């Protein structure tokens, strides 16, 4: 029996999760909030990988596992595939999604607010970028959970230099 939930419910729940962790549980401690959110993602990734690799044979090498994430796993979770995969063949992979679904509605304020404290870089922009980056810890955790369940310990980080394109950098621990 397939039980389904509206996508807007999932979206709203993810938004609220980040808001709770960074606003209430670990207010003013973004690193701790990020770690918790990433840990939740890890669990989710772990379980999802079990579900989506049920009928498949074991992966022959790391590249095959990464390709599984780029094609089948990403289509199951985000209804599209990864647009670009780059590797240095020495354990680092960059997965680029040109229109990351969970960031598709994020829009940073075009007019920066006037702030008098920090005269260095554009403070409005970096605060917004920081807020957006909190939303990427969950997908990073998912990827890390999937790979670790496939026997590939790694570290995953995300890069949003140009929205809505989003790159995930996977560093396999040798």
């Amino acid at each position: 029996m397939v039980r389904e939930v509206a996508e807007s419910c999932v979206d709203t729940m993810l938004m609220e999760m980040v808001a709770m962790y960074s606003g209430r549980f670990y207010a003013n401690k973004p690193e701790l909030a990020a770690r918790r959110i990433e840990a939740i993602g890890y669990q989710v990734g772990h379980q999802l990988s079990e579900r989506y690799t049920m009928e498949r044979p074991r992966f022959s090498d790391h590249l095959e596992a990464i390709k599984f994430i780029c094609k089948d796993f990403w289509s199951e979770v985000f209804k599209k595939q990864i647009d670009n995969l780059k590797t240095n063949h020495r354990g680092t992979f960059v997965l680029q999604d040109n229109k990351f679904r969970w960031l598709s509605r994020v829009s940073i304020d075009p007019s920066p607010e006037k702030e008098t404290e920090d005269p260095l870089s554009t403070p409005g922009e970096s605060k917004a970028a920081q807020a957006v980056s909190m939303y990427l810890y969950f997908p990073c955790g998912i990827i890390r959970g999937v790979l670790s369940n496939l026997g590939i310990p790694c570290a995953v980080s995300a890069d949003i230099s140009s929205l809505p394109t989003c790159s995930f950098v996977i560093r396999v621990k040798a």
Partner: protein
Amino acid sequence: MQFFGGSEISPSPPVPTASGNNAHMMYVFNRNGVCLLYKEWNRPLHTLNPQQDHKLMFGLLFSLKSLTAKMDPVNADKGNLGVPQLPGQGCSFHSFRTNTYKLSFMETPSGIKIILVTHPKTGDLRESLKYIYGLYVEYVVKNPIYSPGSPIKSELFNTALDQYVRSIS
């Protein structure tokens, strides 16, 4: 022969050009009267400063809604003052027209009021306003970094809105 329209005393505005930008301006208010968005495409005359303009617009619609509900000869349900009603329930005013512009209005059950001021020859814009509300839900409500009750500053919303409004005939 027309008696009231098109004379020198109250000339009708120029017919919109082929570029299709029919809309003059748009307001979005929330339940508490905060102006979430004010967009202006073609407004040659400004009579008030922005704050007064927004307050006047909100007050006008508040009064108009309650007036139209109270003067309703058909429906007995008057509703509560200020409480948004479900679509189709009670009496809901949706537009008024003068010789120089038409103002179309829609209020959602969540209290979001969308007002679009266009050329007087515009048809019924209720479906368009519903579509604009759909854009609002999609790009503003679902934007993780938007805090409800604050002015809308989303690029995606502005672009989609511009594009859509230009296509309304």
